[in-house]
């Protein structure tokens, strides 16, 4: 059983607590306007296959840097589309007392056991209303809603994230709606707003995919910080 991945970040500092090994898994059902990893959309676009044991070996190679707070994060793409690999790997990592996290949009398959085992769910909340969700991701909200309900039932520790895009969701009204959504969840440890940037544009050109936010400016980082304060 191997995982199909596009990349490994050995010094991940943005996807979970501490310094982490971050695996970017291939495959995603969503086609978000601002996606900065379009190379992960198709499962067949993977660059490397990796076994659970290899993930552990890799982790051990850098574990002196990861210290007590770090761990492994499964990101992507949508890690919950390779559930068997992710589950096997999480099991192996847990046996070795390694902290695990999934960075997910909640649109996956057969992930119940993963949800029970994983230490942290970093949940990318694309939008909290149906129309906007569809506009950003190209899909309806049913899978996402089901995932959220399951997290709530398990009392899963959550970090919520939302990408803030100018003229899409960068107003206070949107932020208050997000806050309202967060208040319906049991165990939210953190909410982060990620300012949209256009750095992935060149990847789209390479892949021959049309970039749909061509005329959208980068999100102002300070403004994003200000909005984040509203969530506290």
């Amino acid at each position, binding site marked *: 059983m191997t995982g199909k991945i596009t*990349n490994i*970040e*050995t*010094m*991940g*500092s*943005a996807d979970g607590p*501490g*310094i982490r090994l971050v695996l970017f898994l291939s495959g995603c059902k969503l086609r978000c306007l601002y996606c900065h990893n379009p190379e992960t959309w198709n499962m067949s676009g993977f660059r490397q296959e990796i076994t659970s044991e290899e993930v552990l070996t890799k982790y051990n*190679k*850098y574990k*002196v*840097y*990861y*210290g007590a*707070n*770090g761990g492994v994060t499964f990101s992507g793409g949508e890690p919950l589309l390779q559930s068997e690999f992710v589950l096997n790997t999480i099991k192996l990592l847990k046996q070795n007392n390694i902290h695990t996290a999934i960075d997910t949009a909640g649109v996956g398959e057969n992930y119940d056991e993963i949800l029970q085992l994983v230490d942290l769910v970093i949940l990318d909340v694309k939008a909290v209303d149906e129309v906007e969700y569809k506009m950003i991701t190209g899909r309806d909200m049913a899978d996402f809603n089901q995932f959220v309900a399951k997290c709530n039932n398990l009392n899963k520790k959550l970090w919520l994230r939302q990408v803030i895009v100018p003229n899409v969701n960068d107003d206070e009204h949107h932020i208050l709606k997000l806050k309202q959504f967060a208040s319906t969840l049991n165990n939210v440890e953190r909410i*982060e707003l990620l300012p949209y940037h256009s750095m992935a544009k060149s990847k789209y050109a390479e892949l021959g995919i049309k970039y749909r936010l061509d005329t959208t400016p980068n999100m102002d980082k300070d403004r994003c910080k200000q909005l984040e304060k509203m969530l506290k």
Partner: protein
Amino acid sequence: MNTTNEWKGFKGENWKNNIDVASFIASNFTEYKGNDDFLAPISFKTKEVWSKCEKLLEKENKNGGCLDVETNILSGITAFAPGYIDKKNEVIFGLQTDKPLKRIVNMYGGTRVALKALEAHNYELNKDTLKHFTTYRKTHNEGVFDAYTPAIRRARKNGLLTGLPDGYGRGRIIGDYRRVALYGIDRLIEEKKKDLLSEEIDALNLEEGIRIREEVSEQIRALEDIKTMANSYGFDLSRPAQNASEAIQWVYFAYLAGAKENNGAATSIGRNSTFFDIYIQRDLENGILTEEQAQELIDQYVIKLRLIRHLRTPDYDELFAGDPTWVTETIAGMLDEDKSLTTKTSFRLLHTLINLNPSAEPNLTVLWAKGLPENFKRYCAKISIKTDSIQYEGDDTMRPLYGNDYAIACCVSAMRQGKQMQFFGARCNLAKTLLYAINGGIDEKSGLQVIKGVDINTEEVLTYKKVRKDYSNMIKKVAKIYVDANNIIHYMHDKYAYEASQMALHDTVVERLMAFGIAGFSSAVDSLSAIKYAKVKPIRDENGVAIDFEIDGDFPKYGNDDDRVDKLATELVQEFFDAIKVHKLYRNATPTLSLLTITSNVMYGQKTGATPDGRKAGEAFAPGANPMHGRDCTGALNSLNSVAKIKYENCCQDGVSNTFSIVPSALGNNEEEQINNLVSILDGYFIQGAQHINVNVLNRDLLIDAMNNPWKYPNLTIRVSGYAVNFNKLDRAHQEEVINRTFHEKK
């Protein structure tokens, strides 16, 4: 001697009977595990003094980097009248000359070099002095050239050996300046007089015995001179310091004497913060000092260290960019496995970077250890992220070899304070050595036969086996020349430019280390890897000398935690050290080796032709032990892991320097995370037995902006290979080299 007052409240007996500062510290210091909440802001007096200095520093900068030179008086401990910045607001006194930033002419190193430096800044030396040195007195530089062999001259001229201290002060000697504060100078003189009569010296062989007697007599005179100099400022150093203010003042005067007497490249000050803390703590407990006053003393001590200057030539500046003095102050570290030497004054010293803004000098060096208090680690990381002005060195790596009272000279050179000194030996260009192995000892730039008795390689495609064998042979030949050069240099330096005041603050029988170094390391290693794993075809000129290389295929590159090439790296260091240590060294010195280029990697690169790793002719080398720019492309941790593999103990024991640049966002989303993660990285790096890291947390864009708009960033300090510099003081070539270095970014 009656020392009831000075030593009141101090515990322990050993240090009273023998000169033993380490035992005094162990018996009396108070470890501090708390946070930085107690720190005091800049005082009114310090603000006054520092603002005057800032104006002078600006003026110096506008004046082409040199404010003033004293041309009538020569270097010497008692040569200059007392000088002040703002007498009524100063609390620590003493300047090198009678005015701040006025530089000293030192002729003992070499007349030509001193004159060149004066000429570069449009000054003329007093005629009588000039006549004295050109007519009656011989200098270090002349002595060296009387003894240099033709082979050394060729190696030097062609950039195989560069930066040798044959025309400037060798530096790297740290007097144990704390001895002056703890014992007073009279006691130290008494001990030196006893040494003159000791059986140990009597038993030495004829020449060494005579020489030590002469040196100790000079040391005693220098100690008397330090008293005289301090007296001119109104202080009596014959007795021990009575309080914190005196302890800092005494140490500074002792250091200052060395900076008046010599112009050593790196004149480091030792490991003083924990020593000072004992006095500060006693005064605080006795209610005669407040926290504000304690910080004021440390701030003003640091101001004085920031003003140390030496007169340099343009050649020297090209080698060591940014007018560095390496007033390295070593901070924290461990007493033993369980207890750290961290004190409140360790914090106070780093806090000067906030109170007085970031600065390149003094070169603040934290001895990092697993057991340092968490709060202190976090404080260091916080100040690093804010100021880029701290370097870190692995105490758990060095302490087993140097004990718990060593200090760092220059950038990475450890030595036991007062017990070891170093003969600084600059560096040998191992990338050029590889080219010589391929080109039969002919220099690829000058076309001259530098090394004789070797065959030229005529292979169409270089084979690893042959090149490696020829390289080993060449390394042996070059090592011999390199050792000869250093033996001559230090023989002459001792003879013509002896550092009496600094050596007076060492034990009379001292261990000497002779520090050799490597430049062009990662280029040499990657070249070997290219020859081994890819196809390398030399492009030869009409004389059969390879002036460029065609590389077909990929090869593993140093800096990616890939053992295929990292093994070549560790082997090369070991081999070079082995080639050095077979030779006899002057005064039975112990050989050491470093991977440290400071900024000379730029100049060394300029003097070296294209190398088989694909580096173009003239392109800068990577500094120190760093992977070549842009080749450590598989992540920051891989880069660190590769460097951490270089063996320190009994191999690269004079230091393995790594300069690490990272953009803030790659460290974490907010300050708290960035601090935590930087602590984790440092812990992880040093746990593997690594020795040194410079940390720069900055954006490449900011540096490009600073290069184009220097006025916007007057205090932009960055760490460059073992020391910090003001970015604006670097020339364009060095600025570009820093910008081209690998920045570790989030993918």
